[in-house]
């Protein structure tokens, strides 16, 4: 593509020192391109919308050999932060990327990183924090990080995402600073919007600017042993924190110099606080990031009509540019500070409080301050919103006071009388005919025997999930849940962890769940449901509930939830609560665009395990979650696929029997994902059958400690080679080519090893 240099209207008089090319890129792509050029040593990450594309882009570049960053997909953001912390103590450059809950989940690691003074760079594509869960952009996540001791740089468009990453490396590693750095850009508005941008075309210029990594202390020097992270109480800790404070004061000066240097290199000059047409402004607006860019157009329009307004937008949130605000607002009559997150109960957003606090230190400042909360949960910010803010600020300027000092902008009261109305009557116990599976305990062996009614008879059971949900065509999760719940009797309460099935069934104000449903984030679903289980039994014990409700509690998770939520799930299993945990395993984080999960088998292509000269898909073997649960010695563990429905339904009936009487049951259900397995919508049954018949996914159960293979393809002459299963999916077709022979044989060997081990367990009376 032709990539000719162009001149921005605000280009400096002097030509930038470094050669650049024009491209068309999003904020996430720009973060990845900067990372590639910086060539960080290590990246620990966990996918979360809307930041995930950074890792995806970097993985796609890595597999082609475009950079050498060692990318480590963590099992959750807390681990990702741990990986990064550990790596950063080793004397190299470290990158992480996250959003929203990911930032919150790793929050406790942030002060560890800063308090022990190891620089790294964390890009945050900002997003609203749960709950209810909202994937779109506001600033409620980064506001949690304001007290973490990290430098916070703000990037208002894709170009500045790129620029700020280079600057982040420099300021973090500055000898007088030595702090971790967070680069925040607006989720979706900036992370996903493609703009015309400029990229350095001169590797030497980039290398010269960021310099060689310099870590005066690190953990990998045998000649100089260090104790990193001592136990430090009073009276010492306050001095450690004062050092941190001093580093931030140094960072102010250091940043000014780095911005200057970067401006000369790139032609793009930044400041701690951007002033936009603030000369003689009577009213000003303070906004962060993309909304500030949108408001600049409004400033231009109002200025062209002779209205004296201006805009202030911090480029750095920590250290806070209080001196800049004092100077900029010296003669401004009214300023409206708009926050894309509230500090609930404090009467203003964090930015409003900090601007007011800065102004208080100037005894002569008379600016009227208005605080407004806007754009929560990604609500769009239009030019009209900026106009409304300026109108309010001008009114306050004219009156010399704030009529309404604090308010939410853009809320809706609702139409009186228009409240949610029942569409379907509740499904109650009497609606379920029951008896679709007859369960009997064999007195000799103690094992359960199940007899099923015919499939057509089961259509009498009303679906606990209503139609009209938004899953992709051909989604395998819903047939699996349908088969499972066909034989489940009586009252049921479900908990869905975050994932495809949660998102597509509960898009507000709609819910497909005709029985009581709750959601929690997927670090914590099992603990949450176990709490509800025990509340039920405790209320029965106290006589508050009759006990005849006889609830079956079912948790539904994806395989992603069994990565990040493994600890919580194992805890619930160890406590052996009377509940069922079913995992629909579609072999990846499909809700966020098909990143690898630990359940993804070796060699499978995902958006973070690409195929190219450096790798043929995922590089480590699939997690054996069923065996992990078997090791907790809960009463019942099973595997199933919807391609073998009788087997699945018998196991569902057994799971309920055990969950009602003895404790926890866990089931892993391999689940078809036509979109990301890259297979036709209608072939779920045959692909899943091939997964079983190739012995990649054996159907078995571990009942009271005894392993039984419930369907052995070898016994019925149906065993097929793994390659035959892999050939059915676009995500694995590369494995059937000669170039991937080594990976294929490693996969086959692992499948075979696990299958043989399982058969030995099946044959043993004690395993």
């Amino acid at each position: 593509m032709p990539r000719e240099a162009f001149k921005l209207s605000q280009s400096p008089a002097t030509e930038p020192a470094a050669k650049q090319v024009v491209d068309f890129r999003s904020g996430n792509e720009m973060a990845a391109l900067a990372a590639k050029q910086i060539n960080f040593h290590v990246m620990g990450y966990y996918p979360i919308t809307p930041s995930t594309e950074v890792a995806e882009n970097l993985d796609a570049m890595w597999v082609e050999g475009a950079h050498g960053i060692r990318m480590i997909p963590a099992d959750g953001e807390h681990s990702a932060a741990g990986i990064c912390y550990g790596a950063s103590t080793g004397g190299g450059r470290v990158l992480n990327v996250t959003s929203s809950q990911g930032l919150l989940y790793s929050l406790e690691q942030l002060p560890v990183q800063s308090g022990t003074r190891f620089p790294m760079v964390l890009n945050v594509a900002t997003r609203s924090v749960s709950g209810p869960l909202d994937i779109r952009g506001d600033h409620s996540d980064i506001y949690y990080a304001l007290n973490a001791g990290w430098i916070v740089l703000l990037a208002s468009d894709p170009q500045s995402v790129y620029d700020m990453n280079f600057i982040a490396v420099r300021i973090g590693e500055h000898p007088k600073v030595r702090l971790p750095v967070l680069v925040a850009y607006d989720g979706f508005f900036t992370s996903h919007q493609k703009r015309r941008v400029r990229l350095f075309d001169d590797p030497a210029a980039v290398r010269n600017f960021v310099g060689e990594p310099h870590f005066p202390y690190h953990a990998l020097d045998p000649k100089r042993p260090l104790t990193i992270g001592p136990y430090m109480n009073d009276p010492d800790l306050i001095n450690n924190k004062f050092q941190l404070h001093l580093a931030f004061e140094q960072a102010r000066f250091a940043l000014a110099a780095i911005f200057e240097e970067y401006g000369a290199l790139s032609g793009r000059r930044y400041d701690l606080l951007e002033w936009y047409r603030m000369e003689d402004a009577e009213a000003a607006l303070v906004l962060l990031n993309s909304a500030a860019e949108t408001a600049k157009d409004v400033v231009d329009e109002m200025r062209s009509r002779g209205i004296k307004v201006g805009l202030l937008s911090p480029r750095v949130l920590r250290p806070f540019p209080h001196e800049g605000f004092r100077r900029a607002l010296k003669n401004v009559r009214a300023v409206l500070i708009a926050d894309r997150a509230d500090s609930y109960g404090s009467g203003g957003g964090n930015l409003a409080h900090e601007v007011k606090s800065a102004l208080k230190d100037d005894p002569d400042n008379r600016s009227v301050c208005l605080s407004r909360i806007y754009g929560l949960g990604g609500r769009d910010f239009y030019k009209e919103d900026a106009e409304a803010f300026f109108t309010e600020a001008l009114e306050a300027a004219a009156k010399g006071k704030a009529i309404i000092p604090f308010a939410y902008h853009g809320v809706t009261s609702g139409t009186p009388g228009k409240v949610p109305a029942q569409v379907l009557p509740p499904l109650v116990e009497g609606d379920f005919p029951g008896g679709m599976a007859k369960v009997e305990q064999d007195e000799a062996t103690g094992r359960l025997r199940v007899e099923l009614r015919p499939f057509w008879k089961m259509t009498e059971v009303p679906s606990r999930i209503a139609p009209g949900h938004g899953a992709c065509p051909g989604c395998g999760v819903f047939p699996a849940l349908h088969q499972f719940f066909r034989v489940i009797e009586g009252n049921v309460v479900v908990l869905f962890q975050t994932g495809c099935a949660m998102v597509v069934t509960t898009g507000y104000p709609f819910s497909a769940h005709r029985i009581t449903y709750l959601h929690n984030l997927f670090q914590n679903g099992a603990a949450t449901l176990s709490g509800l289980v025990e509340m039920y039994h405790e209320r029965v014990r106290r006589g508050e509930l009759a006990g005849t409700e006889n609830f079956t509690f079912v948790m539904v998770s994806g395989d992603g939830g069994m990565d990040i939520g493994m600890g919580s799930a194992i805890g619930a299993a160890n406590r052996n609560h009377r509940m069922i945990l079913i995992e629909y395993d579609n072999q990846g984080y499909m809700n966020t665009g098909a990143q690898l999960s630990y359940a993804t088998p070796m060699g499978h292509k995902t958006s973070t395990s690409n195929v190219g000269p450096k790798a043929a898909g995922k590089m480590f073997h699939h997690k054996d979650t069923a065996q992990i649960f078997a090791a907790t010695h809960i009463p019942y563990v099973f595997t199933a696929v919807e391609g073998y429905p009788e087997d699945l339904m018998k196991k569902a009936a057994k799971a309920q029997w055990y969950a009602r009487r003895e404790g926890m049951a866990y089931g892993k259900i391999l689940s078809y994902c036509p979109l990301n397995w890259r297979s036709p919508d209608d072939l779920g049954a045959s692909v899943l059958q091939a997964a079983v018949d190739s012995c990649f996914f054996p159907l078995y159960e571990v009942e009271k400690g005894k392993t039984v293979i419930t369907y052995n393809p070898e016994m019925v002459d149906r065993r097929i080679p793994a390659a035959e299963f892999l050939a059915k999916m676009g995500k694995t077709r590369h494995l059937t080519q000669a170039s991937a022979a080594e990976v294929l044989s490693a996969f086959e060997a692992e499948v075979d090893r696990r299958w043989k081990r399982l058969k030995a367990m099946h044959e043993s009376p004690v395993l």
Partner: protein
Amino acid sequence: MQGNQKLPLADKCGFFEIRFESIGGLGAHLAGQIFAIAAVLKLGFNGAHFSSYGSEKKGSPIKSYVRLCPADRELRNSSPVERPDLVAVFHEALLRMPSTCAGLKPSGALILNTGKTWEQLASYPLPVPARVYAVDAIGIAVEEKSRVNTAMLGAAARALSFLNPDVLLEAIVEILGGKHPAAVDSNRRTFRRGFEEARLVWESQSAGPSSGDGVAARPAPVYGYLTAPPGGLIVNPGNTILNDLSASRQGFLPVFDPALCNHCGLCDLVCPDYCLVWGSASEPITRRLEGIDYQYCKGCLRCVDSCPTGALKKEREQDGFAQAHRTPLFPGKIGNRSGG
């Protein structure tokens, strides 16, 4: 570089804006990206491209936006396109919603994925812009084994005189060639056919305001802070039955022939959308499959794959068929999109 090329319909701020209205899976996001890359990197405009985002699902509504301006002008606004100069509708089902074409300028152009004539489209709440083009993009895509997006780009090149179709095709070939080299030839044909088969079905004689000259409706909440139950509770669950998923189908649907059905129930075990309708019958098989509620059917055809008797067959969806042959699961509970 053709950076001084004039944008013919740019607004008073100098922007030329485009909105692709689509369903996830039809490739509107990629189409917008290709269009914008061609305009920015090949024609030298300044520009932005972005889409409305939810989770990564096929079948849900999506809007893709392109904003262009002259090369020397700054582009800073990141809000959705509300007053487009061009709207391209990737799926006819979207035409039922007035919001689909909302805000289209009277001077603008509208591209519809339909084989219908202007008269046949009269039942939809369509604006009357300067020009309306129709192209049977789905028919082309089915025949060429590609997606509708490149056919729609072909039609866009037809509708926009400043956009050299060769340049757009070059961008398609480059972008698809990188990710899906096997798809290049079929998409090249799809694009050419989209360009050639786009029909001008309406051209305004006067330059006056049209019925479509309204401001686009911004997404508004169904309930407000005085009427929504606290904490985001949904107190009327099961209300997804009010949703209409017909637009998720991409050209095909299952057709049920009761004469061939043995009511085995296998189809019911594999349908992800719970849209098969069962009723009572006399002994020995006391349940019978009565039909399909196409309101929820996304056309995955898993039921067809499961059917041992051929009672469920895959057919190309004809206009009006689903409505005429639908067996309602919840009679009398349709058409209300407000959440109940």
